[in-house]
């Protein structure tokens, strides 16, 4: 069975204007719209395309989070994942914990490929995929903008600072995906109705032999300082003048 695992994180929707709680203990989540982390959605889309091209047999969506994360997994099932696993956690999950859980799932499921977003848009850690590859002892390719399956090898085009880099890595492997890899599909209406019948297993950390430990402590959340209002200039010449006056050009 050529199985692809896809990490799905429940995050505040990208369109929400995030507000910090008045006491600075976190971000206000009451009544806030939650969604699949957009990069994870791209990872899922890639997995589904691979399956549709006959390069995989099964796509499993996995998440670590609260009970409500089932909503995001249902969305993943409606998009086309075959089944889903939720590892329940009522506290925020650190990247290392997530990587440990995903490693255990990858081993238990005998995964051929694990696809995750390059980062989640809430904490922007950009660590889970890399840590997972190390713990699992398999190759990794991060920031993928193109992925091709060549038998037992994966050719991955990466977006790096200097441009594009192409790697060939042996499967099983971990790939973290970037924005330009694909454009996720609309969830089809009939598939939404069918998603209810697909299996969604709810598991605990103990099921995967992971004991989450708190290594990071967030002391305070503060909203970024509001920027002072800018000025509009009419022409490039005027812009250069202003910059010169400020000693910037």
């Amino acid at each position: 069975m050529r199985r692809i695992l896809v990490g799905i994180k429940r995050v505040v929707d990208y369109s929400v204007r995030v507000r910090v709680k008045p006491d600075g203990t976190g971000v206000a989540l009451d009544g806030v719209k939650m969604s699949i982390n957009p990069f994870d959605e791209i990872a899922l889309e890639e997995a589904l395309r691979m399956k549709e091209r006959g390069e995989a047999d099964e796509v499993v969506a996995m998440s670590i989070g609260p009970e409500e994360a089932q909503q995001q997994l249902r969305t993943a099932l409606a998009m086309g994942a075959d089944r889903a696993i939720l590892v329940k956690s009522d506290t925020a999950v650190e990247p290392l914990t997530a990587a440990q859980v995903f490693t255990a799932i990858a081993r238990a499921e005998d995964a051929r490929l694990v696809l995750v977003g390059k980062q989640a848009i809430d904490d922007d850690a950009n660590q889970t995929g890399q840590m997972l590859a190390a713990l699992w002892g398999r190759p990794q390719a991060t920031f993928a903008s193109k992925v091709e399956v060549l038998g037992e090898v994966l050719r991955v085009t990466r977006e790096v600072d200097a441009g594009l880099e192409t790697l060939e890595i042996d499967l099983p492997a971990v790939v973290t995906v970037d924005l330009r890899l694909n454009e996720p599909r609309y969830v089809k209406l009939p598939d939404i109705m069918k998603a209810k019948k697909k299996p969604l297993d709810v598991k605990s950390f103990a099921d995967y032999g992971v004991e989450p430990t708190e290594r990071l402590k967030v002391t305070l959340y503060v909203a970024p300082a509001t920027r002072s209002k800018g000025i509009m200039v009419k022409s490039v010449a005027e812009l250069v003048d202003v910059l010169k006056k400020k000693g910037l050009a």
Partner: protein
Amino acid sequence: MEFALTEEQQLIIQTTRDFVVNELYPHEAEVEESGVLRPELRDAIKAKAIEAGLYAANMPAEVGGAGLDTLTWLLYERELGRANYALHWTCVARPSNILMACTGEQREKYLLPAVRGERSDCMAMTEPGVGSDVRGMKTNARRDGEYFIINGTKHFISHADEADFVILYAATGEEETPRGKKKLITAFIIDKGTPGYTIRPGYKNVSHRGYHNSILEFSDCRVHQSQILGELHQGFEVANDWLGATRLQVAATCLGRAERALEHAKQWAVDRQQFGQQIGKFQGVSFKLADMAMELKAAELLTFEAAWKFDQKLATDMDMAMAKLKATEMLAFVADEAIQIHGGMGLMSDLPLERIWRDARVERIWEGTSEIQRHIISRAMLRPLGG
């Protein structure tokens, strides 16, 4: 009472909203300005709508639709209703549920292709001399062996220019009743191109640019009896049995448009500064917003309660009338207030508000005028008392 939406309903709302925002909004300005929905654009969006399973989602699953219950269908209609009407009605068409009355060959010829998006329908009831008093229609079909000869004129026929066939209502006889003579009405399916059937451009009008009405002329149009939808003389019965909650559909699209107008008004209330503060901090604006939100919610509750009752087979004519009346009048109020909050900017075509305000006008007229709805509501109250 249970008011929570299921996970499926939330997903349907989400995917429909995403489609409307990504695929329909970007083309609104073009359609509004030109008054035309280009066929290439129509076909491109339609293909995506079919791919997403949004096209004909109102139809039952056994014929290829999404098989939604009435409440869920209306949640989908609410999202579509946010966009320009021509775009959502033409590219994400909802074939008339009356096509479910198709039997035998009619299913292959009309029902199934309509659900697949290969052919499209329109419905013709209204005539120049016949509005709310539909029984008074002049268009008639005279039997000639296995055929009917149809003569008459229909007008205000929505999207007949786009449709491949029309479901036409025509008088096929008269019967004596204690209250005098009453016309017998039959529904026919007539293909575009049938000799004697002419489609003429309709009237230019204030609402729904790009979405056209037409005038249909029937002059000795010869139609085989196999084209009858339902039974002879049973035109209204087939409509009552199959047409479904069309008044709630109007209500639901109004909800979406009002929600969009309110979103703009709220944003403007916090972005716009006058006299050193956000205008939303002035009571004149903030009270308007509160009333708009409350009216919208009231209309939503009426509409969704009626939908729920419709599924339970508990809905009365009064429930449907109240929902349609409230939602359409609420939209007029919310659109008008949203413009007032924006001031001059609200009238400019850069924002969708003037469009929503124009489009709101027809909603209180079609699918039964506000007066007809009030008549229905009051009759339902007074009739049991001998009124």
